[in-house]
């Protein structure tokens, strides 16, 4: 994972709440066995509408998505994060993220920046008054800036640290190999095992 401290890019306003992962990427695109190549799948139903925000010229190359509350609800599909990244997004801003989506983002280096809804409204206003305007997300200062506007953002401390260091979760955990083995040694024998198969 590439370390990320700040990101500056064109912001797209997505004025919708409860953007579920079926909207972000419909199930028919989940048949692929790769982690990339999902850019065409992102918001595929909505993108058929010429009025959809990502079909508007200044937002086509957006890398920051500013969305309504409860972004990423529903299915656990990490494909939603892969699709956002493949399209070019590096940051999603919302007042509230679904837990699994937020977790998946953190693992894949997509910044899920939580910003109060009243500040999201200010960002939307600022972007729409100046389409194509850039937003800067600063993980050091934990702030989001758009022109003269700067608002605070929230991100849990551990995810922030991992994003800034670009750390791989599995390597971090394997440093605890001894503790894991010790724990395994103490598990009750009645705990279920899948092997050998019983019938």
């Amino acid at each position, binding site marked *: 994972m590439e370390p990320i401290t700040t990101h500056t890019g064109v912001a797209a306003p997505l*004025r*919708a*709440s*409860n953007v*579920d992962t*079926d*909207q972000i990427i*419909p*199930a*028919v695109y*989940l*048949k*692929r*066995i790769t*982690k990339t190549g999902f850019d065409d799948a992102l918001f595929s*139903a909505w993108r058929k509408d010429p009025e959809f925000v990502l079909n508007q010229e200044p937002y086509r190359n957006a890398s920051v998505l500013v969305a*309504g*509350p*409860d972004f990423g*609800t*529903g*299915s*656990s*599909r*990490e494909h939603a*994060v892969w699709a956002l990244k493949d399209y070019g997004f590096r940051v999603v801003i919302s007042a*509230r993220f*679904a*837990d*699994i989506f937020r*977790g*998946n983002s953190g*693992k*894949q280096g997509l910044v899920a920046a939580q910003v109060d*809804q009243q500040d999201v409204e200010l960002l939307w206003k600022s972007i729409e008054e100046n389409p194509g305007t850039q937003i800067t997300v600063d993980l050091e200062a934990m702030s989001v800036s758009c022109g003269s506007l700067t608002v605070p953002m929230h991100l*849990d*401390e*551990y995810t922030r640290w991992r994003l800034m260091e670009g750390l791989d*979760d*599995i390597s*971090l*955990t*394997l440093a*605890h190999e001894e*503790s*894991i083995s010790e*724990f*395994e040694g103490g*598990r*009750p*024998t*009645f*705990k*279920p*095992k*899948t*092997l050998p*198969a*019983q*019938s």
Partner: protein
Amino acid sequence: MADAPAKPTTLAEKVWNEHRVVEGQDGKPDLMYIDLHLLHEVTSPQAFEGLRLAGRRLRRPDLTIATEDHNTPTQDIFARIADETSRKQIETLRANAEEFGVRIHSLGDSEQGIVHVVGPQLGLTQPGTTVVCGDSHTSTHGAFGALAFGIGTSEVEHVMATQTLSLAPFKTMAITVNGHLKPGVTAKDIILAVIAKIGTGGGQGYVLEYRGSAIEELSMEGRMTICNMSIEAGARAGMVAPDETTFEYLRDRPHAPKGEEWDRAVEYWRSLKTDEGARFDNEVVLDADRLEPFVTWGTNPGQGVPLSEDVPDPADAGDENARANAEKALAYMDLEAGTPMKEIRVDTVFLGSCTNSRIEDLRAAAAIIEGRTMAENVRMMVVPGSARVRQQAEEEGLDKVFKDFGADWRFAGCSMCLGMNPDQLSPGERCASTSNRNFEGRQGKGGRTHLVSPLVAAATAVRGTLSSPSDLIES
């Protein structure tokens, strides 16, 4: 010196504490041990590939099991899968299972089925365990008093490599359902009412513990239906404290403990309940006596009302966002505010999904339709949750009831719940569905979904409009 009395803890905290491998310091998450990892074809290939690229092994094949469900056909299951990408995904799971030594139940196998139906029916889902799967409806397994939740593919790979997950503790919320359900009102109606009450984000960051007399009176199937849809309230997990109903369900299941191990296990399982005086971070109370069959009108599972009410007016929605959301939902659903829910005509009835495809669900629906005829211009699809449920239903003659009624009797899988395989709605098609999500396009591009219980699904198939069994008696 005597030990200080232990601090009263909730069920979720008990299970959490017993799986903590390393306690997180300075705001870092805990490292948690995972007892059971369920795999399916859609969210695992990239994780296996990750292991391969890093030269890592699968740490515990004996705590891992795979089945094919999301993308599998529900008819002609022995024919070659026509869609090449779908076939490749299934073949990839089979090859990965072979390479990493994972037990797999493939299409055609007697234990194949929806991952959340298979785990419990094999007796692998047990009280006090931690269960994960790359599927948000893993919350289903919480019905046994397990801490069970969905994870993304990065976490799937993490569990494969380490049998652990880094997790920040969840908050706890009690959902207390007092009283008793009236006839015709089911577990599905409880959970739809809960979601409508707390909203799709209301459970965020929480483990929900369902308790109270109405929950205690539910079968394991009913408890699974409720825990299944915890994610639709935004919660990662839902739990029910294990009791005699749980133990009876598990006894003699293939992977349930045997002999003395059974006794030791039950003794431990009995300790798994929220202590007197334990504090929840939040609590919601519902009265089961006042619940009615519940259905959704919109495009998220929180947009639901009692079946006897009308399509709500967006003007009555709380804030500007909710209003805009409701208007957008009504436009998509092609509904007008004020229309009685019972006048909404459907094209399709889908009985299936990890929410409502177990034997009890099929029995309940069959009992309603038996001896009745399907409404004109309605199609009904019945998709059992597993090959074993299908077999049991056939032994009980339920398949004949469905077929005589004119319903399509299919093989097990996720099917039209998410429309990954050919089982999809057409644009504009309206469906009464026993599944869990009514998102735009969820069951097929342009399809319109009303979430309902198996009883409402069956009554709707008879009348052609959203209906409850009591409407059949009145008519």
